[in-house]
């Protein structure tokens, strides 16, 4: 099977620090791939390279087998790669509907839209409500309420729903449960599984091993700017994974390609 998003020999240096050192990456269709690694291992550089937030010094990225060059997160979005940033990138004072359609608003057809450039609010609100209820988030009553009046989990839910609504090919989630409580984390994990059930592959960056082992199909272990190995969470324990990423245990070289 052909990977939907892959990268080979990515290199990125910041002065004398090498963040990515001939790094490879593969995401298969329909899977949840977790990316784990110690702080400073180069996870965020890898993710930023894949989402267009940084430009790599060398190496290639392929989407659907075609080479791509993202100059900005907007480029990546147009190609169907959506990222949910840890900061969520939402405007707190604006409504849920406004935030979901920020930067890709729908205009009314005909004169009102073409000449007066009027937004089609009913359509945007309908789609936003639809997307939220698809993901079981309709505890949110009012689609026009400001994002700052939502709880942390609800905000995360809206951000994931926004990505799921527009991310046609790949969704990247950066630490989606880091700021959440136990119960809210649960909802977000269910949300992630829902999104996969719709056939959209997900890259999940997380420090939370229980969460990673619960939802991931494969785990990409990142160490010293490289892909150390890819493991199947069913074959290893969490302490194995932590041992691999900290270098306490030798990586299982054979399983890396088998998975």
């Amino acid at each position, binding site marked *: 099977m052909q990977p939907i998003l892959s990268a080979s020999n990515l290199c990125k240096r910041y002065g004398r620090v090498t963040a990515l050192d001939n790094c490879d990456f593969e995401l298969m269709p329909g899977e949840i791939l977790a990316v784990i690694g110690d702080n400073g291992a180069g996870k965020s550089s890898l993710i930023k390279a894949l989402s267009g937030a940084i430009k790599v010094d060398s190496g290639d990225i392929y989407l659907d087998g075609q080479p791509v060059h993202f100059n900005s997160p907007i480029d990546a979005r147009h190609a169907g790669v959506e990222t949910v940033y840890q900061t969520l990138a939402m405007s707190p004072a604006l409504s849920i509907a406004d935030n979901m359609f920020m*930067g890709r608003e729908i205009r009314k057809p005909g004169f009102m839209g073409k000449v007066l450039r009027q937004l089609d609010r009913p359509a945007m609100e309908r789609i936003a409500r639809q997307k939220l209820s698809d993901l079981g988030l309709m505890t949110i009553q009012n689609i026009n309420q400001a994002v700052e009046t939502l709880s942390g989990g609800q905000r995360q839910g809206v951000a994931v729903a926004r990505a799921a609504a527009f991310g046609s090919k790949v969704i990247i989630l950066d630490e989606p449960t880091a700021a959440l409580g136990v119960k809210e984390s649960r909802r977000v994990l269910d949300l992630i599984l829902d999104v996969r059930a719709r056939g959209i592959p997900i890259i999940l960056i997380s420090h939370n091993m229980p969460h990673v082992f619960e939802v991931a199909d494969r785990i990409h272990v990142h160490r010293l700017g490289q892909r150390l190995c890819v493991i199947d969470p069913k074959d290893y324990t969490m302490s194995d994974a932590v041992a691999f990423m900290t270098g306490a245990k030798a990586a299982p070289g054979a399983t890396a390609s088998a998975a």
Partner: protein
Amino acid sequence: MSNQTEADGGLVARADAIASFEHQHTMLSRVQHALHSNPALVPLIVLVLSVAVFGALLGTKFFSSFALTLILQQVAIVGIVGAAQSLVILTAGIDLSVGAIMVLSSVIMGQFTFRLGLPPAVAVACGLAIGTFIGFVNGWLVARIKLPPFIVTLGMWQIALASNFLYSGNETIRAQDIEASAPLLQFFGQSISVGGAVFTYGVIFFILLVLVLAYILRHTAWGRHVYAVGDDPEAAELSGVNTKRILISVYALSGLICAFAGWALIGRIGSVSPTSGQFSNIESITAVVIGGISLFGGRGSILGMFFGALIVGVFSLGLRLLGADAQWTYLLIGVLIIGAVAVDQWIRKVSA
């Protein structure tokens, strides 16, 4: 899930009740929510109250269509400049050069007509173009060079004001001359009266401008982007908003609106005077702040600014009719400014 962990096992029988304090929907919290979603409500209430109070004190002297439309005429110039200021402040910026752009544009319209002998229509177009260009330079410096708006427009204020005096030679063009040879310059001074109410074209332009901007800010993508840029520029950028283009277009539009204010200024005072409109920048910021637009950006509405400008007008006219010292007006305006910002801070604390 196959890998359901021990920790999450404990969630199976989880209680759905979350830790909660007794949450009372008090009168006050309801008011707070209402104000959060309708930021123009506070200035509207203050406006209605002040009209009612002055009406009760002064009777028909104040409550005549003539007096009430006089207020509109008196605030029209500040209100037009305030509309420009609102746009900039919504992006979390500030434009100190609005008054200077206004005066420079009016001087250019006058001098191009009388010194260069251009047709008035061309001179007006030049004035509007130069106002827009100065605004564009402000926006370019803020968005591209990333200089603080306060510094950029503080500098531009001095530059535009100095150019105004240098170019005009501190010379006023008399109202009679304009009336005789270039009545187009006084276009906004013309008026229609309905009963005792007098609406100058400047007032009508001011009201239309506010309505058009309210529509644009609420119902177009550009308008939503203005709010998003003021709210959280990084989030807006990551969401796909071209923040630089929005900032430059906001400052350029502000410059254009100020140039229109300059044209309306000629209509209001009749002559072209390089020393007029000295306090427009502070007065426009006052109208914006009293109108409930947050100086931190992203919150408020242009209708609020409209009410804010009217509040200032009602206070000045009402107190003058009462025979009070003009300083009372400034004192009360000062109280309103501080009160408005305090209310803004309180509204921001709203949460689910």
